[in-house]
């Protein structure tokens, strides 16, 4: 029987974050992954602060978290074959995140068809109805993403992944 999308996602989940050096350096974690959905977390860390007076995390952490969460949701929405590239990412910074709290991003692939996926996401620090930021993004499977997917298949076949 063919592997279900959920099983495939479960198997690929560790690669989607640990395989990205930048996600690792920010300590991003994948809290949940389903068809067209991803929940990710950025931990509160002193070395990621953007305003030393208030201790608020830098907006760049929110940007990277939202980009990554949207990318994972798009990957899942497109059938978990190739990692798509970000075409554009629009972020509204609603309010500063509370110092000391992790930031959680919930991303949902609204529509995926062919090579394109549209994603919406919310970032919050505990209460989803009181967002820190919201984002809207479009992704596309590009030639480099197809070539990268081929390299993954080869690496898996050779037992390197």
């Amino acid at each position, binding site marked *: 029987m063919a592997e279900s999308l959920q099983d495939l996602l479960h198997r690929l989940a560790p690669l989607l974050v640990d395989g990205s050096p930048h996600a690792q350096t920010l300590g991003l974690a994948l809290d949940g992954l389903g068809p067209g959905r991803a929940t990710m977390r950025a931990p509160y860390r002193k070395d990621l602060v*953007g305003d030393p007076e208030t201790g608020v995390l830098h907006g760049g952490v929110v940007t990277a978290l939202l980009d990554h969460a949207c990318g994972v949701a798009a990957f899942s929405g497109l059938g978990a074959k190739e990692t798509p590239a970000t075409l554009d990412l629009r972020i509204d910074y609603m309010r500063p995140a509370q110092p000391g709290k992790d930031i959680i991003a919930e991303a949902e692939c609204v529509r995926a068809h062919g090579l394109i996926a549209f994603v919406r996401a919310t970032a919050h620090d505990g209460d989803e109805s009181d967002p820190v930021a919201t984002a809207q993004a479009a992704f596309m499977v590009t030639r480099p993403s197809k070539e990268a997917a081929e390299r993954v298949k080869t690496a898996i076949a050779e037992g390197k992944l």
Partner: protein
Amino acid sequence: MSDDLIRTLLEVPYVSKFGVRFERRGDELTGVLPYAEHLVGNPLVPALHGGAVGAFMEVVASGALLAAQPLMRLPKPIDVAVDYLRPARPQDVYARAVIGRSGSRVANVRVEAWQNRRDAPVATLHGHFLIKPVPADS
């Protein structure tokens, strides 16, 4: 110009972690994001992380606003829209900002980031920032 705040901006933990620096000629400012492995988003392409490039452009937008006029505090992003035009390769990234309009509370900024060729940008950003200019009579 707000030289002290430009220093503060570059010393912020998140910004100094990634080694962002500015090259200034008067009120013109070019940001440099030196390549490091921890900036890579997808090693299989390989390409730098979109979040890292986006965040770098936000820092350059803030730097350009501080280089253009005296401000009381660091600009705060209200919204940003980033277009990714080509994969950012594992090498240094440069960015320069153009201030569209800078009022008494909000500034509109566009940023272009490039690597090998200035006329082949890897990403562009356009965004609004909350600013607090030093009052003219002080």
